[in-house]
């Protein structure tokens, strides 16, 4: 069976993000970028399914500028078989991402789309859910365990109350949580091989998707600086402060 793994190019998790001086977004020029860590987990899971003999082909997809090819090369080095870049310089919001992925899923007919539960840049946590709705496929989000058997996926999900296990019919959408697996280090021979794997480039228009944003960002600013703490004299003082200053009790 075929698996589709959407991957997003984001600011590297080690970078201290800075807000642009004009408040229109965060600084991404000349900042180290890498694959969204949740998507890396998705790639790893797909490769493990392939190694287990369940999956036969892994197709990685990314939507973004030409540099997103680097992110796709990383996916190919982890073990994807080929890659598709949907190239656009525009801001692509989750609904547009889902529509593009819908078009690709319809063309590729994968049995499984596995992707990060969210991207660490905007933390939207929407794409997987929207994609499932658009395709009319079942979804299992926040996966910490995935088992594929007889046309079903048994997915253990991390929910507020603990763990929940769902069985869903394939084709389906799975979004990954942190504990699903620990991604491997890419090997040198696979870096070399990744250069030679197929990477197709298309555009949103070619897929018939209008990516014009539906939401408008008004302003981006840094969170308020944390103020220094104070030592309280005793419990009575604490209670008084909670009542009168913090007004939480």
């Amino acid at each position, binding site marked *: 069976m075929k698996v589709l793994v959407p991957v997003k190019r984001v600011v590297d998790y*080690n970078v201290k993000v800075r807000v642009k001086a004009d408040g229109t977004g965060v600084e991404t*020029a*000349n900042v*180290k970028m*890498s694959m969204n860590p949740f998507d890396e987990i998705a790639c790893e899971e797909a490769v493990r399914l392939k190694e287990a003999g369940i999956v036969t082909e892994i197709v990685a997809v990314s939507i973004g500028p030409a540099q997103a*090819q*680097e992110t796709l*090369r*990383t996916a190919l*080095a982890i073990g994807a078989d080929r890659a598709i870049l949907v190239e656009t310089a525009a801001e692509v919001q989750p609904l547009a991402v889902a529509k593009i992925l819908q078009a690709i899923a319809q063309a590729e007919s994968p049995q499984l789309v596995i992707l990060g539960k969210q991207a660490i840049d905007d933390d939207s946590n929407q794409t997987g859910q929207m994609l499932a709705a658009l395709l009319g496929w079942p979804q299992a989000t926040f996966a910490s365990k995935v088992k594929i058997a007889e046309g079903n996926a048994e997915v253990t999900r991390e929910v507020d109350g603990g763990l929940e296990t769902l069985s869903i019919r394939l084709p389906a959408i799975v979004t990954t949580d942190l504990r699903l697996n620990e991604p491997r*280090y*890419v*090997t*040198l*021979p*696979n*870096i*070399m091989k*990744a*250069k030679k794997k197929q990477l197709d480039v298309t555009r949103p228009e070619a897929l018939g998707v209008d990516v014009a944003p539906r939401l408008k960002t008004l302003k981006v600013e840094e969170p308020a600086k944390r103020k220094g703490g104070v030592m309280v004299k005793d419990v009575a003082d604490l209670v008084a402060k909670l009542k009168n200053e913090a007004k939480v009790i």
Partner: protein
Amino acid sequence: MPEYVAPLRDMQFVIKELGGLDIVGRLPGCEEVTPDLVDAVLEEAGRFATGVLSPLNQPGDRAGARLEDGVVITPAGFKDAYRQFREAGWPALNGDPQFGGQGLPHLLSGMVSEIWNGANMSFCLCPMLTTGAVNAILRHGSDGQKNIYLEKLISGEWTGTMNLTEPQAGSDLSAVRARAIPEGDHYRIHGTKIFITYGEHDFVENIVHLVLARTPDAPDGVKGISLFVVPKFLVNPDGSLGARNDVRCVSIEHKLGIHASPTCVMAYGDNEGAIGYLVGEENRGLEYMFTMMNFARLEVGIEGIAVAERAYQRARDYAQERVQGREAGVRGGERVTIIHHPDMRRMLMTMKAQVEAMRALGAAACIALDVAHRHAEREERARQQALFDLLTPVVKGWCTELSIQIASMGVQVHGGMGFVEETGAAQHLRDARITSIYEGTTGIQANDLIGRKVAAEKGMTAKAVIAQITAFDRELAGASDPALIVIRRALSEGVAALNEATDWLLQTYPYNIKAASAGAVPYLELWGTVAGGWQMARAALLAKQRIEAGSTDLHFYQGKLATARFYAEHVLPRAYACKQAIVHGSASVLALDAAQF
């Protein structure tokens, strides 16, 4: 924040922008070495280094390697890290593709090597020496030896060692006494070797020792030394492992630094004699060993750069965090992090500027080596080999001496906390300390430089480099940028000092070798200082051009320009002092009788 992050931006700048890839990418066999491959390799190496090797650095230093019943046990985590390192295919980075290597050029593998050493120098010594063994067998071994050993060494399934030193034969290898007695198709080796890095360990099942020894009727001195390959376990014709050879680790050293790397005393032939196989011809061992040695010297220079970078990162992070005192000249201001204090800035700039200069110079040596190995034309190969030969002692000697100074400065930035082992700053100083000693001390490098590399060819290559630096002055001539004006002046003064010292050396060496030798180390330092300044000037000019062309990466390019200026103002003037000591100071070096000390 992780403890060590590979300095990818500067590495990419040196490889891709400073001109290295333009040269190396065109060489035969380097067609695949494209900018995106360079990025991918550096990034993944950086991830592995930060994630796997760096976290073991300090625990490895504390635990150290142990010897129990003839078995060396490396610190917790090292064996598993080596397994991951091998499975990821990293040992094969620059190996010959004919034997399973990836055949990537030194320009790239040198940078990757810096990443490994920056993360964990003790760990890296094992693969480094293995590569040295591979080079020796590849160049001088028989086809049979190549088939038995190369694939497994290149993949890292087995590791290699270099066995030169004996208690009475350190820098002077003519005193080697280990014996090799012919017996059929092999020899029996007897003798003791000391300071054998990773001579015994638990990473892999077989260790391939390359050993210098004398055959029974060999001439005295260095012309009577042969090279043998002595595997820990003999290898059957089908490649499987046979009997345990008569070679054992009898003790490991307690050292100032690199605690996790086992430095072994190896006993050959305590019983029936260790079986060894001759590499190449008898009595040519030292010549062959220099194949390993020159590569190893470059690598040790890179170790120096790596530890200096790590010491810099740690000092910088500490200075950004530690709050102490108020900003000079600000009345009643708030307490500030120590990076606000001018002397901290001076120390951090001294570290940063010299690390960047060393990195660019190390890359220049790697480029020369790549061209020397791969260029289609023989003349160009020879020219670049001569350049590499000249730069090898400079990179080895200068980068390692500076790395000790830089690591020491890293301790200084931490103040009292640097003297405490807990912060980790002291480990870098202790680890760096060996780099100016092994694979030939700085004194040995300097003698090699003035004798074999400069005087022997009447300064041909040295003068060619000096001419190149002088010619570069013309490129700086039109600059109106104040930093470039300062850099130009400092570089021209530096190269004038280098030229004068070289002329003096060429005149003095043939008739007064003692006077010439008295100034050998200052001459090596002079070379490093000026050649490093040349690289920084090239970087500065390029940075200025990028800024003028509207680059948005001002953070990097402005930083580069300012750092190069600092180098010109604070480091390059040392060239004059070196020259004065060389040209005028030899007599006082030798003035006293030995008894007067």
